[in-house]
């Protein structure tokens, strides 16, 4: 009888029983209460009703009503409710906000790919008092179905022409080699990123040979272990190569190869969550900013803006949460340009600093997986042809991954991730077959497409704060080599945020202001 009185007293009564159960979406963070809802003290996260759509990513409380009969279930609900109300629980009598991001966060990282997570990791690792900074990572696509990170081929090389790129990759490979020291989480299994240290082989024709020699000199200066090979040495080492048209080749002997980007992403995600970073599955729709008119030292007036609120819209819902923040980090990858436009970057007369947009765009790139039983063996490096075609070994069953960057004219439409198989037939296969005669007979097993966060200015990353929107930091625009440099770039951005200047690797040539001043940091070895 006590139970019955409890049930009658604590349950909603006849008002709540007959009405509908499942409600999708809510408006503006508020829940449309019905009837006696608002007045009662029950937490809305009771099992009788939920207010958001089915989303497997959330641990949503159970949907659906229990009807009148389930006494034991109701008792345990009541006990749960009482427990959540007692001090210490996060009971909110107004409305349930457990699915929303917090109302304020010190740093909001837009984009939860490898660059965003790397920045989050280094921010939490480098902060002086532990637990000082609250970080929120906002990721729109929780399955990472269109993220560049997981669709990447996963190579890492030090063979760049810009010295900073070499330094970035060197640190990143050190990070990856010691990944279980950096990303260890108690009680979780160690990570296996399946690093294949097979090296990169860049081939150069007559025209490019001099540039290649210069590049190798720069790389050696920075500490990369690269060797130059003549066509004969090439034939000796790799008998399956056809060295016609190749004048020089550079082969990375150590610290180069490929790894599993999904494993790195998950490892970072796990570690970063253990360090206290909050994740939000939502989309940034708006930045609220305030601006101040200030004078520079030379007397000219500039309008400096700071973003003080980020509106995060919950997926498949009209609800949004304004998150008060001190710093915003734009690590949205291929969509960084759109995020920058939200912040007002590029809205101004062209040719001025206000009118300089962030030149990062979506570019679609195809990757094809084929099977060739007579193909090159286990020591096949990541080969990059002078024509721009590349391939690497995948696994142990004579499978190969490869592709080619299209020229400006034949850029595919980045609206979707559909694969164009004719591209393989026309643009990828002929140079491949010419370079590796064994590839004349191959069978394409599968293919996929992914986006490059392509920096149309100079194909190198943008790192550091924006000169006018002073609390937006960039970590994007790496045009296909972002994954391999992610750990180092994350550290650089974290240093910039915490200390105010780059401490370990000086990336001041990668700042945003180069788009205005026109100083290109052109990277020649882009695939």
């Amino acid at each position, binding site marked *: 009888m006590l139970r019955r009185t409890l049930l009658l007293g604590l349950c909603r009564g006849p008002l709540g029983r007959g009405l509908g159960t499942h409600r999708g979406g809510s408006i503006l963070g508020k829940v449309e209460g019905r009837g006696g809802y608002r007045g009662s003290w029950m937490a809305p996260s009771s099992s009788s009703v939920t207010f958001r759509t089915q989303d497997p990513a959330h641990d949503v409380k159970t949907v659906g009503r229990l009807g009148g009969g389930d006494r034991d279930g109701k008792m345990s609900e009541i006990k749960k409710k009482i427990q959540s109300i007692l*001090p*210490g629980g*996060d*009971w*909110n*009598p*107004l409305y349930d*906000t457990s699915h929303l991001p*917090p*109302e*304020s966060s*010190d740093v909001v990282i837009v984009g939860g790919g490898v660059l965003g997570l790397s920045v989050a990791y280094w921010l939490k690792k480098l*902060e*002086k*008092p532990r*637990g*000082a*900074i*609250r970080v929120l990572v906002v990721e729109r696509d929780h399955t990472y179905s269109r993220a560049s990170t997981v669709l990447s081929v996963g190579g890492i090389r030090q063979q760049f022409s810009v010295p900073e790129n070499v330094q970035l990759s060197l640190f990143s490979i050190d990070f990856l080699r010691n990944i279980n020291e950096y990303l260890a989480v108690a009680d979780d299994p160690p990570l296996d990123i399946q690093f294949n240290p097979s090296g990169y082989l860049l081939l150069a024709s007559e025209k490019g040979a001099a540039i290649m020699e210069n590049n190798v000199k720069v790389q050696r200066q920075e500490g990369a272990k690269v060797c130059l090979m003549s066509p004969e040495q090439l034939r000796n080492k790799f008998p399956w190569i056809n060295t016609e048209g190749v004048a020089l080749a550079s082969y990375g002997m150590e610290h180069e190869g490929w790894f599993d980007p999904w494993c790195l992403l998950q490892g970072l995600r796990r570690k970063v969550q253990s360090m206290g970073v909050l994740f939000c599955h939502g989309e940034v729709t708006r930045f609220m900013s305030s*601006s*101040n008119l*200030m004078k520079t030292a030379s007397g000219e007036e500039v309008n*400096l*803006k*700071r973003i*003080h*609120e980020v509106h995060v819209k919950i997926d498949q819902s009209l609800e949004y949460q304004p998150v*008060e*923040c*001190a*710093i915003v980090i734009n690590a949205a990858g291929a969509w960084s340009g759109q995020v920058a436009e939200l912040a007002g970057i590029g809205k101004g007369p062209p040719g001025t600093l206000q009118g300089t947009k962030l030149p990062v765009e979506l570019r679609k790139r195809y990757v094809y997986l084929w099977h060739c039983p007579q193909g090159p063996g286990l020591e096949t490096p990541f080969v990059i042809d002078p024509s721009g075609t590349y391939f690497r070994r995948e696994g142990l069953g004579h499978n190969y991954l490869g592709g080619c960057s299209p020229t400006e004219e034949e850029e595919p439409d980045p609206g979707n991730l559909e694969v164009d198989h004719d591209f393989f037939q026309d643009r990828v296969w002929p140079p491949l077959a010419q370079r590796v005669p064994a590839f004349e007979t191959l069978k394409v097993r599968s293919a996929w497409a992914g986006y490059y966060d392509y920096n149309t200015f100079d194909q190198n990353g943008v790192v550091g*704060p924006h000169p006018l929107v*002073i*609390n937006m930091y960039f970590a994007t625009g790496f045009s296909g080599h972002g994954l391999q440099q992610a750990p180092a770039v994350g550290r650089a951005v974290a240093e*910039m*945020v*915490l200390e*105010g200047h780059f401490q370990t690797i000086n990336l001041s040539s990668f700042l945003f202001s180069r788009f205005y001043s026109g100083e290109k940091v052109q990277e020649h070895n882009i695939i």
Partner: protein
Amino acid sequence: MLKIIIPTAMLMPMTWLSKPSMIWINSTTYSFLISLVSLSYLNQLGDNSLNLSLLFFSDSLSAPLLVLTTWLLPLMLMASQSHLSKETLARKKLYITMLIILQLLLIMTFTATELIMFYILFEATLIPTLIIITRWGNQTERLNAGLYFLFYTLVGSLPLLVALLYIQNTTGTLNFLIIQYWAKPISATWSNIFLWLACMMAFMVKMPLYGLHLWLPKAHVEAPIAGSMVLAAVLLKLGGYGMMRITILLNPTTNQMAYPFMMLSLWGMIMTSSICLRQTDLKSLIAYSSVSHMALVIVAVLIQTPWSYMGATALMIAHGLTSSVLFCLANSNYERIHSRTMILARGLQTILPLMAAWWLLASLANLALPPTINLIAELFVVVASFSWSNMTITLMGTNIIITALYTLYMLITTQRGKYTHHIKNINPSFTRENALMTLHLLPLFLLSLNPKIVLGPIY
């Protein structure tokens, strides 16, 4: 007393009937005038009290607290202008009304003669504070904070009601002026021990005592600026004031019963100061420093010597002003950067030099620099506790050092060093903010010229 109470009560209709452009100006100016009127109560007749009516009186203990309360209202209004600017007009007026009601209740609390009336008003002050914290606080955790705040104080003070009713029955009166002469010494029987506990626990929770202090950091961090100011400056002093009044009835049991609370306070003083060294949230640091200073007041009140009472009274006033100005400074930081984390806003001295001057003065006052009244108060308490037991000097000395450490840590982290890139465009200091800091610091430093006003009835 009515000359303060009626104008304060009339501030409410004035707020509601003012033109929208005038609500802040009207309320600030008139509350300032009321505080100037209350200054007249500082003219106390030596050892005796100023008996204004059957219900209200003021003596040298309650007069400075009364002046502090009334002085704080215009300051709270000035501090709240910025964060309320985006609210609707009705909400703004409601907020100001809450502050005025709180003010009214506090004025009556500090000047109540009858202890039951004191109790009722003591409890009543919880309601406007709760409303301010939970409705206008910053984050969702404010509901939890409000809950902690309300229930800690309520649970602590319910026994007080029972004890007061018991004393009313046995002694026949609870009028403070009479009872100080009629109080009989109570022997140390079990029921008297419980009586002692019942009387003191409410004030211990309010102070707060170290073991019961969990509500304070939460409430301070989640409250809006005016809530933090009034909490730190006045509401904590309610506990001290109540303790000083009620210990008159509890002799000589206090001599034995005080031991556990003395231990908790002495140890808690050092613990909370050490916690301050590890805080990353600015408001949380100032909240813990409040606990540390109030622990000194608890020690002083429980020792019950003339010097310690003088120290306790002076410390309450000094801490009220210092803590309030530190919260205002932290809030001015927060309004610019939208984050309370200290390390995200560094090097402010180069960008806001005048504000850096206020930071410096407030920090120096917090670490009890001579000749501020902070020092006088702390010194009196330290000396008195040394006479109570020689060992306490080591603990007190350690606390003074750690206080200096964390205050300087806070000052240096926020003001010195190279500024971070993302604070380059913060607004320069408003006149309102500078006026706010001046109006806090001027009385504090002027009191060092004439501290006898705040040294309480024993002086």
